């Protein structure tokens, strides 16, 4: 019965109601986004400019909205018919495409009126030219235009702009890219003689309707995609778009380490041809002295490792015990200690570099231990970094202990355990994920440490990998960036491995405590 009524309802291929509704949806989008543009340009921009702040953000935003506005409207039109797709596919598609056509006309009128989109004024020399042997051949001139004023004639062959040879294609691109009123010093061959003329660009309105056609095709395609788009893909596409710059970065890193040089993402050899794959960037692993410091990469790696491991061990030991005490015991100054720790956590390390230097050089004079913990010693350096890492560690650990119910600890005490044993056998295992996460954080922090090692290690024998990397970036000699990339990659490898195996625990540091226990 219901199905019957439904088909009675829809005699033809087109349903005017649904068409109008679809157009309305699109128009709402157009109006809403236009309003945003108006607010951005007519209201926010002057407001921001009035306080003498660079207002390029609002301009950029407005341009972005103008750019995406038509497509969002078409997508709205396409989405509006999706619910009819299964019952009347043909009608749905036709409705959407027709609506898109209407929207396209409306939007194009808007573009025309406000000189936007395809009608945006572009830089022009007010002449046309075609491709010819040795340059661009002037075809026609706008009467009274800048080119004519400057003395360009039909039939001139433009061979170069300043000293750079041009073709008609490169010349168009140059003009399009230039700002208003930029001078073009044209080298012109006229009747076998060479002259030079300077023409200044003007902003010329655009009223070429032929430019609309590609736009219409794109509009219809966008609508069609919107009709048939699998909805569950949307989040992934958005995420991928956000992720893309990062992925490209890593992609470049990998390509760069294995090539002679790169331009963008394309590996090149010495002559500028695509290719140029090489393992030379990695020869620092086999004794090549790329920094001129005359120190083995393995010594440097060992230094990095010492700092990382010392960081991890000491931070874990101290913060887990301090966290326990702060979470479970009541002692004088507990609250003050807690707030002080929090302040220290936010304290910028740079401001303490000089005082710490004095402390370290005194420590170096202490008999026996001074040999290890003083200035210019990996362990001493890691001690400084431990001090900076501890506030965070202590807070995190306190949080983890706070999450363990008191009753479990009481139960252990009643069962006959000492306080120490309760800590070790009952409490620590429950915050194992937290311990692992903090340990990894400390390790990576130590492994990647730069500021403090850079400050407190002088001799080549005590530097770590990040400092070594910095040494490669020489101010006076040309830098081999592909080699830098390779060393960076080498430093990244352990971090990658750790993240692959431990990301589950690292996520835990934000959640706190053992999941699914009790």
């Amino acid at each position, binding site marked *: 019965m219901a199905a019957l009524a439904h088909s009675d309802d829809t005699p033809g291929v087109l349903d005017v109601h649904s068409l109008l509704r679809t157009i309305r949806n699109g128009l709402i989008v157009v109006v809403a986004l236009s309003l945003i543009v108006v607010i951005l340009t007519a209201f926010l921009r002057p407001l921001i400019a009035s306080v003498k702040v660079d207002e390029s953000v609002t301009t950029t935003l407005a341009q972005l909205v103008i750019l995406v506005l038509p497509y969002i409207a078409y997508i709205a039109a396409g989405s509006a018919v999706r619910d009819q797709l299964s019952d009347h596919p043909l009608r749905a598609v036709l409705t959407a495409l027709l609506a898109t056509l209407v929207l396209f006309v409306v939007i194009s009128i808007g573009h025309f009126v406000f000189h936007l989109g395809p009608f945006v004024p572009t830089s022009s020399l007010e002449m046309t030219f075609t491709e010819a042997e040795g340059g661009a051949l002037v075809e026609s001139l706008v009467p009274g235009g800048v080119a004519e004023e400057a003395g360009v004639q039909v039939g001139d062959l433009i061979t170069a702009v300043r000293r750079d040879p041009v073709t008609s294609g490169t010349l168009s691109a140059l003009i399009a890219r230039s700002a208003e009123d930029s001078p073009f010093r044209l080298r012109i061959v006229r009747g076998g003689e060479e002259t030079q003329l300077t023409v200044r660009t003007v902003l010329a309105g655009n009223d070429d309707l032929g430019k609309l056609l590609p736009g219409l095709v794109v509009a219809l395609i966008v609508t069609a995609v919107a009709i048939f788009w699998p909805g569950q893909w949307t989040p992934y596409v958005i995420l991928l778009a956000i992720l893309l710059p990062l992925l490209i970065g890593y992609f470049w890193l990998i390509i760069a380490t294995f090539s002679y040089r790169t331009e963008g993402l394309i590996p090149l050899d010495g002559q500028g041809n695509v290719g140029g794959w090489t393992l030379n960037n990695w020869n620092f692993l086999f004794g090549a002295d790329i920094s001129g410091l005359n120190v083995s990469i393995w010594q440097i790696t060992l230094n990095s490792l010492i700092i990382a491991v010392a960081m991890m061990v000491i931070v874990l030991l101290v913060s887990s015990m301090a966290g326990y005490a702060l979470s479970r015991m009541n002692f004088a100054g507990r609250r003050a200690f807690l707030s002080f720790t929090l302040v220290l956590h936010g304290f910028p390390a740079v401001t303490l570099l000089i005082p710490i230097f004095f402390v370290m050089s005194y420590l170096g004079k202490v008999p026996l231990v001074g040999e290890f913990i003083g200035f210019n010693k990996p362990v001493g350096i890691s001690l400084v970094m431990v001090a900076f890492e501890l506030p965070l560690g202590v807070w995190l650990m306190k949080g983890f202990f706070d999450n363990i*119910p008191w*009753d*479990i600890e*009481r*139960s*252990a*005490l*009643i*069962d*006959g*355990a*000492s306080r120490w*044993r309760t800590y070790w056998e*009952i409490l620590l*295992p*429950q915050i*194992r994920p937290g311990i692992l996460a903090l340990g990894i954080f400390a390790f990576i922090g130590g492994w990647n440490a730069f500021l403090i090692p850079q400050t407190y290690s002088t001799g080549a024998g005590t530097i770590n990998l990040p400092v070594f990397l910095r040494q490669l970036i020489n101010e006076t000699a040309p830098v081999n960036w592909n080699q830098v990339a390779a060393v960076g990659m080498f430093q990244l490898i352990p971090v990658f491995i750790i993240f692959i195996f431990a990301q589950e625990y690292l996520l835990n540091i934000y959640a706190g405590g*053992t999941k*699914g*226990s*009790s």
Partner: protein
Amino acid sequence: MEVKIENLKKQFGQVIGVKDLDLNVRDGEFVALLGPSGCGKTTTLLMLAGIYKPTDGTIRFGDRVVNQVQPRDRNIGMVFQSYALYPHMTVFGNISYPLKLKKVPKQEQMERVERVANTMGIGGLLDRRPGQLSGGQQQRVALGRALVKEPDILLFDEPLSNLDARLRLTMRSEIKQLQNRLGITAIYVTHDQVEAMTMADRIAVMNQGVLQAFDTPEDLYDRPKTLFVAGFVGNPPMNFADVSVMAEHGGFTARNESIRLQVPAERGQKAAAAGKVRMGIRPEDIHVVDEGDAVTAEVVIVEPLGRDAMLDVRFGSDQFLVLADPQKHIRAGDQVKLHFDMDSVQFFDLQSERSLLWN
């Protein structure tokens, strides 16, 4: 093991957790600590366990003063409301933990854990982790862990309140039977009076850190010594009305502006001298009748309880709860005649709030 608590006091900064508590628990006795939430029951229990140090007073296990004794040297077993199982250990690990700490040989550990687990009906779960068990099973593991070291005293802190109603019933009788069979002195904290009434040999009623009464369940119910106990014990709670008890025509009557009731001589005598007193009578001692020497009241609310219907009735300025036969189909707004069964009526002094009958 006998437990003697004298003058026990615990203060947290300004907050008083427990005040001047005196309690003697006999060997093998099952004592319930009953009271509303926040009245100091857990605090008392934790002082017995040695987790909290008393601010004042003494605790004796037998003749030994244990105030300064560490929890591990008190030989107690404790079961918590949250079960407090060790999540990273198996059931076997949990139950054997006290034995491991006592350095009991491995072989004996296995035997004892197995025995306890079988008693508790969790013999098949020994290699599971607490997270894989239901609430009832976790509770049995916690109980097993408390029992395995053969403690002198068992402490329970609301062990059943996280279980569903049906499981609570079975666990209640299991715990009671187990304690009876093993003869271990047990102190059982609960805010559920039915639990206390059905399980305990004696009940200590606490309120705001102060011991209100310490009696057998029957005495608490039939012979409440204070107004608080009378109002707290029993569900639905006792009804109260302020009356004057007078000697008239060779008998006694309790009367105010809306009621006039004949009081048995033995009770009336004790209340008559006091002037205005608070009369208490339980809902089940008031009956809806068709005829006779009765009080007429208006029904405000009717709550069907299944076996009974609970009526909220009003007469004069007093509002009472009454249990009636649901077959009578009484509705809100009806007028009913009430007969008061005065043989179990209670009287309390308005100032001291103490019973005029049982002190």
